[in-house]
């Protein structure tokens, strides 16, 4: 697996390096000074800062369970995953190189995502159907990653307002993970209806997750304000591998004790960010970064 990561990283870097190696020829009838200027403004470095919010959804690749049904359908204990329900946040530093209409952008980020799921268990007294116990386990999983996405971005049109599309890949390094479990029970076997809501059990779950990688893509727009650009964008990102550390699936006694084993998961995010980008190269004090690119 490590060899694969290395290979992909080399490909990404080499594509960026090759992009920089291509130098357009200076037109025959252009003065050398103007040609140098053209060549200069056809390239640009941008440094920016972005922040925003994200919504996450986990999708099971393979389901695991601790509570193993003997006389009822195993699908009844399956976890039900919520779609993009809770809000997380992210902050990003953007380092972008512009060359001939394309942007090659490295955007290291801190991303904090929350996904939620629940499952319900029910026991009924066969001799007296009025006696039953229903338990609902509601789980909120927070995962924090250092994210290293590499984007290729293209401006569709415009001058001051520039819509763009971008596509890329990312590698995420796990920083932390925490799980909160709330158990609510409806007990109608004790002579009446007894509603019991437990205090959430909050436990570290870093060992049950791992680093992962995937693809990302989206769209947005930049707006030229003076010499800087304001940027607003929305991206979809999805892991291409299991984000769960299978070796530690059952290592957390707190979670095993309440019957929770992490499914193998794909993580999907909708990420919305806004920020500002600064040009790093100037021809003169009167130069505007949007003069050419």
């Amino acid at each position: 697996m490590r060899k694969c990561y290395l290979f992909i990283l080399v490909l990404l870097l080499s594509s960026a390096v090759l992009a920089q190696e291509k130098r357009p020829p200076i037109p025959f009838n252009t003065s050398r000074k103007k040609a140098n200027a053209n060549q200069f403004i056809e390239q640009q470095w941008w440094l920016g800062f972005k922040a925003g919010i994200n919504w996450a959804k986990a999708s099971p690749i393979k389901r695991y369970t601790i509570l193993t049904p003997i006389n009822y359908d195993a699908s009844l204990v399956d976890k039900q995953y919520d779609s993009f329900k809770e809000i997380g946040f992210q902050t990003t530093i953007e380092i972008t190189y512009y060359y001939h209409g394309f942007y090659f952008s490295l955007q290291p980020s801190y991303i904090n995502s929350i996904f939620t799921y629940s499952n319900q268990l029910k026991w009924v007294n066969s001799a007296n159907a009025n006696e039953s116990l229903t338990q609902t386990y509601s789980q909120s999983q927070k995962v924090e990653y250092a994210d290293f996405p590499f984007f290729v971005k293209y401006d569709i049109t415009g001058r001051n307002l520039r819509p763009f599309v971008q596509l890329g890949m990312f590698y995420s390094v796990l920083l932390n993970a925490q799980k909160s479990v709330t158990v609510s029970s409806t007990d109608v076997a004790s002579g009446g209806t007894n509603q019991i809501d437990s205090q959430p059990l909050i436990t570290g779950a870093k060992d049950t997750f791992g680093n992962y990688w995937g693809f990302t893509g989206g769209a947005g727009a930049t707006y030229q304000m003076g010499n800087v650009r304001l940027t607003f964008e929305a991206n979809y990102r999805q892991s291409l591998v299991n984000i769960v550390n299978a070796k530690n699936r059952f290592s957390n006694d707190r979670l095993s004790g309440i019957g929770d084993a992490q499914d193998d998961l794909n993580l999907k995010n909708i990420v919305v960010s806004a920020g500002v980008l600064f040009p790093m190269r100037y021809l003169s004090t009167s130069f505007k970064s949007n003069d050419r690119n």
Partner: protein
Amino acid sequence: MLLIAASCSKKNDPQIDSAKFVRIYDTNKFDASYSPIDVKQTPDSGYLILANRRLPDPNFFNGTYLLKVDKLGAFVSELEVPDDKVAPIGPLLEASGKYYFFSMAPGNYQTQLSEVATDGTITKTLPVGGSYPSAAFNDAGNFVLLRYDNVAKQSVVSLVNPQGSTSKSVSFTIGEGNGVEEKFISHFTRTGRQFPFQVGKTSAGKYFFNGFYKYTFSLVFTDLVNKDPLGVAQGQQADGGFSQLLPLEGSRYAAARFNFGDNYLLPSVTVNENGISSIVNLGGNNLPELVQNAPVKILSLKVNEKDIVLYSSNTKSKQIALFGYDKTTGTFLGSHYLGFSNPFEIASATPTTDGGLAVCGITYVAGKFSRICLFKLSKADLSNSFK
């Protein structure tokens, strides 16, 4: 790029899935209650679990239950054994590719031996005779059986073969009166104290039983010929004695003892196999975290290329505790706790072919429902815990 990415996807590894897992076997029957007795790994790398099951009133005794799961712990089959086999005892005894267990006929309390295939089905049941089977031991394909004779009021040790025939038998009085018998009856009906009855064989070839002899819960050595014991290590009536023993070599044992509720682990202790001695004087490591008169299981296994004795027992915090000691020196190597939130109690543990350990116990799902749980620890887990 995406194709390369896809080809590098993390794949599920069955070895990881079978090396470590936790399972709780649940039924949606509100009034069902299971209490495991023993677990054994079968040749297909799955597991066979023998358990008690609660029978509806007015049955005095527990019924029998067999559960077969695969190497990942996934449910394969169950057998709610008809109620003509009650009060089953462990361990599951393996002989010639079959498994055996003793139980009792509910009407006349007579002992019977059932043969179980690796898929968890009972293939035959044979009458053995004699009442109240209490403990069993696998002596290289023949079975040593401890039972209670409620007519003669005797502890009886017998040698039984897989065909149900008894070749040797010797009896020892529990004492006159009904005092000790009441303890037997409350043990069998599970309405009172569960005594750690045990029968086995020493490294020198003597047989022993841990049970009642002359009013006292004692360790009694016998050659299955003489009516008098070869030696007796006495407890304190019903309030002190051995909880479990594992013969090591010579007269050295890994043992656990209870004394008025306290628990002591003795990973290397010399027991006097001849004459009369007292268990109370043996000392040991007092473990206040264990429940009163805790059930203890002791296993011998190899971890990190080192022979260890592994104790498993129940803690007051409702976890299953594993304590590892060096088999040669008795030095403490480490501990490992299983379970959290819901209560967990030990039933049995067995080494697995992958160098790990399977620990079978009871848990109470939602705090109410007594269910069988199975922890599979990997070789790495054991290596990390018992260094």
